[in-house]
């Protein structure tokens, strides 16, 4: 695919995106409008993340792409292939080795470093969208720091269900200012949002980029008497035995037997390599 520029986008477009990224980093959690381009994959399939990655990638970078925590899910494979073809950068499945990680719906289990960038694919960047469908209104609410509606929603959850009934895309407040949608990661991942790496969020269809710089305060919204709780399935991983990683529930047979395995495939593999074993590990010596 030599007829395209490095990492597909032309340099003008990259410059426009980099400006939006820098603005986003300067105002943590603020949604910066940008002139998102049509990409050769559909809107809703990671075009925002792909554009941010394309504008961030340098020839010497090593890229990792995950979807649902896994390197081998079809859309992750497809996006990795896109950058292999258009940027010719090295790719890896190892979190440690990656300099840029594009992700959909998960933050890797391994602690990210200062020299790494994680790029999130974002479907709906506006945390207030399902409370107020109008962009004109929600932008006003952000500028006035008018987040009462969100607290009322959380309060109503508690009065109705006895708990905050948001399990993923759990809203956070960034640097004591903007309420932000961390993208549809499970709330289990929310505590990791305070990290050493640069976090960039790209929403292609909605034409928004936002960012969380390293070491920035990120607080999951809650109440003193109903504190935020990062939850996961109450099992250890059946392959590597980890009891503190996020798990996928896999249905194994017609009788409805289940097994639980790490959603982060690289994390699970490296633990098994190091000799850790879960309940069903023997039959799966891989």
């Amino acid at each position, binding site marked *: 695919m030599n007829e*395209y520029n490095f990492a597909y986008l*032309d340099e003008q477009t990259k410059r426009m995106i980099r400006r939006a990224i820098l603005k986003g980093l300067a105002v943590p959690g603020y949604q910066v*409008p*940008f*002139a*998102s*381009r*049509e990409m*050769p994959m*559909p*809107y*809703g*399939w990671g*075009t925002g993340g792909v554009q941010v990655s394309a504008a961030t990638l340098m020839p010497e970078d090593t890229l990792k792409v995950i*979807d*649902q*925590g*896994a390197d*081998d*899910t*079809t*859309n*992750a*494979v497809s996006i990795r*292939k896109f950058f292999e073809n258009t940027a010719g950068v090295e790719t890896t499945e190892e979190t440690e080795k990656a300099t840029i990680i594009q992700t959909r*719906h*998960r933050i890797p289990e391994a602690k990210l470093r200062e020299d790494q960038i994680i790029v999130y694919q974002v*479907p709906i960047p506006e945390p207030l969208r399902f409370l107020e469908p109008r*962009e*004109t209104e929600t932008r006003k609410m952000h500028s006035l720091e008018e987040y009462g509606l969100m607290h009322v929603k959380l309060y109503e959850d508690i009065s109705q*269900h*006895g*708990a905050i*009934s948001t*399990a*993923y*895309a759990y809203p956070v407040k960034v640097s004591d200012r903007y309420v932000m949608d961390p993208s*549809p*990661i*499970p*709330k*289990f991942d929310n505590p990791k949002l305070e990290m050493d790496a640069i976090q960039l969020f790209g929403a292609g*269809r909605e*034409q*928004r980029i936002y960012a969380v710089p390293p070491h920035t305060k990120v607080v999951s919204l809650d109440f003193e008497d109903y504190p935020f709780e990062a*939850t996961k*399935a109450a099992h250890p991983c059946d*392959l590597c035995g980890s009891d503190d990683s*996020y*798990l*996928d*529930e*896999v249905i*194994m047979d017609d009788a409805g037997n289940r*097994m639980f*395995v790490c*959603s982060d495939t690289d994390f699970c593999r490296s633990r098994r390599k190091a000799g850790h074993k879960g309940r*069903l590990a023997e*039959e*799966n010596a891989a």
Partner: protein
Amino acid sequence: MYVAVKGGEKAIENAHAWLAEERRGAPDIAELSIAQIREQLSLAVNRVMAEGSLYDPDLAALAIKQARGDLIEAIFLIRAYRTTLPRLGYSNPVKTDEMACDRRISATFKDAPGGQVLGPTFDYTHRLLDFKLAAEGEVPVAPTLQPRTEATPHITEFLKGEDIIQDEPASDATPGDLTREPMEFPSNRPLRLQSLTRGDEGFVLGMAYSTQRGYARNHAFVGELRIGKLAVEMDIPELGFAIDIGEIELTECETVNQFKGSKTEPPQFTRGYGLVFGQSERKSIAMALVDRALRWEELGEDNLGAPAQDEEFVLSHADNIQATGFLEHIKLPHYVDFQSELELVRKLRREAEERIKPKEAAE
């Protein structure tokens, strides 16, 4: 036994190979050529050019072939290609009054200078399947006349003298470009028109139809509908003057709408405007109706709360490439989020059951 979804790469390759076979269909049937699609499915080509925002009949025909006739998929191919093209400059505004009209009708006047020219229209055909076409009939030669050489004036020009139709304020301001700047609301008319002309035909049609059925009815007459070819001119700085860089076919519709007047304006006719690449009649009429409905604020009309009056609603949902992408993305894996919902619902159910149990025991 645990069978993870492995081998995604191989699966994708195989799926693509199968898709290519399906696209071709039975190999003993002759393959469609790009020229055949361009010449014989020209209205599909027009739609792909209009909503793909790229005037190139050959590329549109290629996209239709590659997309197996799925026009939204073809539009997507064109958009993705278009976005990689360098922006060399902007043409001068086209002068639609200089159009060489293949078709030009007015519903507001029985006759007018330039005449009523039906052109190649489906109107007044009886929609009976023509089985002769299945047997490859030769087409009878259509009679011809010498075309008009002079320009055909716009119908609304005739209303202007009386001041009975609202005048469009002239402006030399450079309009925004929605492919270069993110859409922000409230927007303005040039951006609305850009959005509508590339908007999904079905969506724009539905919105227009809703105004006719009473959701912000604006009493539209087709003042004029014209289809024809136009030269595109561009200023070349090195030359110091404008030259023709090509010719495009356009459909233009101007509606004349009743207007009772408002607090600020005396009663007069108002206008809606549609301009679309190619012969795209339905789309341009629909566009004009929706354009008119969106002008309520500018004309001092009441906001009736109708969907077609709601700029943010209409413009945010008119693009079928955005819509189809987001709609179809829900078939991507979502099991991480689903898992967290599972845990949450299980927990809520546990707690609810605990609350119910002691009550039952007490009864």
